[in-house]
């Protein structure tokens, strides 16, 4: 057991009682608070945190707030779940003030203790409802559009960044720009990003950056946090300032699941400060340099090729007249050769045709000469033949006697033997029968 402390002397001139040992005073305070009447309170839940033993939250309304806790077993028995008690949820709690007095080795804490089971979800918080109404109002006024219509440069020379001076978002922005290979001019406008004074300071920083006229794009960055922490980015004045700013604003506030009003009015909303920095420089600078070098090479190739083509064309054109004359000469020679050949063919054909005709004429002449030589003899033969013609004898009055078989009967004896004979005269034949005596001459 520690030795009792000696009471030191008090402060000179002070009229306050004491000094008292702090532990005893703390115990007294705890007892005093615990004796206060237990009550029901209502408000909005913010910053809900679950630990193994307790559940911590803040109960807020527009006039004030109290830190609260509830034993984890009692909270789990309600079956609400973490999602039901999201930031902004309206609840009624029942309990009383409590105070943990602490000790030499542990810090004290002041809390409004929640009696077991005395919590009821009463609905969505007014702040969220106000946020939703404000979002609809800004949207109806068309304030979500102006920033999105601003042209964002692909390669800004100067980037403004509004963020907390000591936050991790600052390093994330630098990392994003480094990944883009961007090493231009970066203008920091540091401002608080969490408390009630944050929104006016952020708005002023944005206006000051835009007023310089030297900033091409502005990044507003803040790391993750509860919706209560991020609520300054839902400030109406700040959002109207952003909407009407002449410089495009890229917002990265909280995690990707958070949606503040500045995300709606900004030109672009990104999930992380790194992503916001990369979006501020759409062009990857290192790759762009490689592309430009490649473009320059291709232009050089096309230029050389065009000049070479022009030189080849000029050379071809300069050769054209000579080639044309040579071609005409070749054609004329060819035509001449064809004419000569045609002449030779014609002479040859005519010669052959003439020879053929000469041969025919010769043959005809030879035949004519032959006929002239044989004609007299033939006439003589014809005359001789005619002289022996029996018909000529008959014409002189003789008759030709033939038997029935047509054989010539040349004697009287033969005529008698034949009996019936035929007498052929010049004009016709008659039959006759041989009779009487032998009349010998």
């Amino acid at each position: 057991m520690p030795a009792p402390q000696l009471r030191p002397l008090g402060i000179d001139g002070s009229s306050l009682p004491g000094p008292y040992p702090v532990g005893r005073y703390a115990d007294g305070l705890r007892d005093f608070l615990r004796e206060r009447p237990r009550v029901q309170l209502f408000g909005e839940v913010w910053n809900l945190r679950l630990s193994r033993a307790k559940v911590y939250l803040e109960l807020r309304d527009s006039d004030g707030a109290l830190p609260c806790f509830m034993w984890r077993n009692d909270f789990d028995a309600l079956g609400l779940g973490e999602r039901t008690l999201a930031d902004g949820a309206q609840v009624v709690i029942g309990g009383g003030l409590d105070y943990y007095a602490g000790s030499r080795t542990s810090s004290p804490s002041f809390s409004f203790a929640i009696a077991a089971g005395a919590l009821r979800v009463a609905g969505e918080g007014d702040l969220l409802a106000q946020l939703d109404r404000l979002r609809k109002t800004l949207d109806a006024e068309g304030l979500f559009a102006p920033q999105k219509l601003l042209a964002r440069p692909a390669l800004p020379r100067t980037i403004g960044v509004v963020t907390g001076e000591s936050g991790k978002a600052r390093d994330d922005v630098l990392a994003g720009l480094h990944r883009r290979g961007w090493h231009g001019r970066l203008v920091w406008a540091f401002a608080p990003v969490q408390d009630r004074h944050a929104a006016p300071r952020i708005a002023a920083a944005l206006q000051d950056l835009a007023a310089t006229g030297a900033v091409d794009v502005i990044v507003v960055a803040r790391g993750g946090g509860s919706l209560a922490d991020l609520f300054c980015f839902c400030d109406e004045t700040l959002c109207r300032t952003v909407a009407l700013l002449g410089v495009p604003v890229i917002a990265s506030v909280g995690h990707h699941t958070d949606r503040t009003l500045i995300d709606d009015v900004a030109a672009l909303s990104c999930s992380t400060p790194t992503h916001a920095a990369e979006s501020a420089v759409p062009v990857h600078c290192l790759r762009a340099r490689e592309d430009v070098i490649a473009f320059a090479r291709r232009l050089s190739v096309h230029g050389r090729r065009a000049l070479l083509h022009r030189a080849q064309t000029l050379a071809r054109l300069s050769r054209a007249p000579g080639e044309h004359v040579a071609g005409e000469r070749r054609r004329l020679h060819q035509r001449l050769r064809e004419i000569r050949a045609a002449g030779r063919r014609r002479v040859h054909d005519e010669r052959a045709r003439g020879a053929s005709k000469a041969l025919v004429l010769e043959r005809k002449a030879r035949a004519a000469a032959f006929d002239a030589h044989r004609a007299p003899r033939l006439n003589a033969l014809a005359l001789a033949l005619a002289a022996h013609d029996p018909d000529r004898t008959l014409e002189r009055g003789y008759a030709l006697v033939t038997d029935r078989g047509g054989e010539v009967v040349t004697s009287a004896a033969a005529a008698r033997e034949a009996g019936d004979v035929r007498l052929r005269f010049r004009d016709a034949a008659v039959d006759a029968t041989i009779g009487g005596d032998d009349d010998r001459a």
Partner: protein
Amino acid sequence: MTEPENQLALSYEAASARLEEIITRLDSGQAGLRETLELCKEGRTLVELCAAELEAVGRGLEELHLEDLVARLEAGAGAQGA
């Protein structure tokens, strides 16, 4: 857009987009000789513009506080006024 004074006013994205159009046209082989030479001339100007823009953001990161930028701008405006 072939006038040099117009090209000076071009943004990087407009210049690079026009440059890609020129390369596509040249690659198609449909440009005549005169057009090819004109496109090459325009393209070289655009390449220089893009290279200058990239050079401006490649010399090294310069970090300023807003107050420093304002002071620098005011000093520049004062020098010009004098």
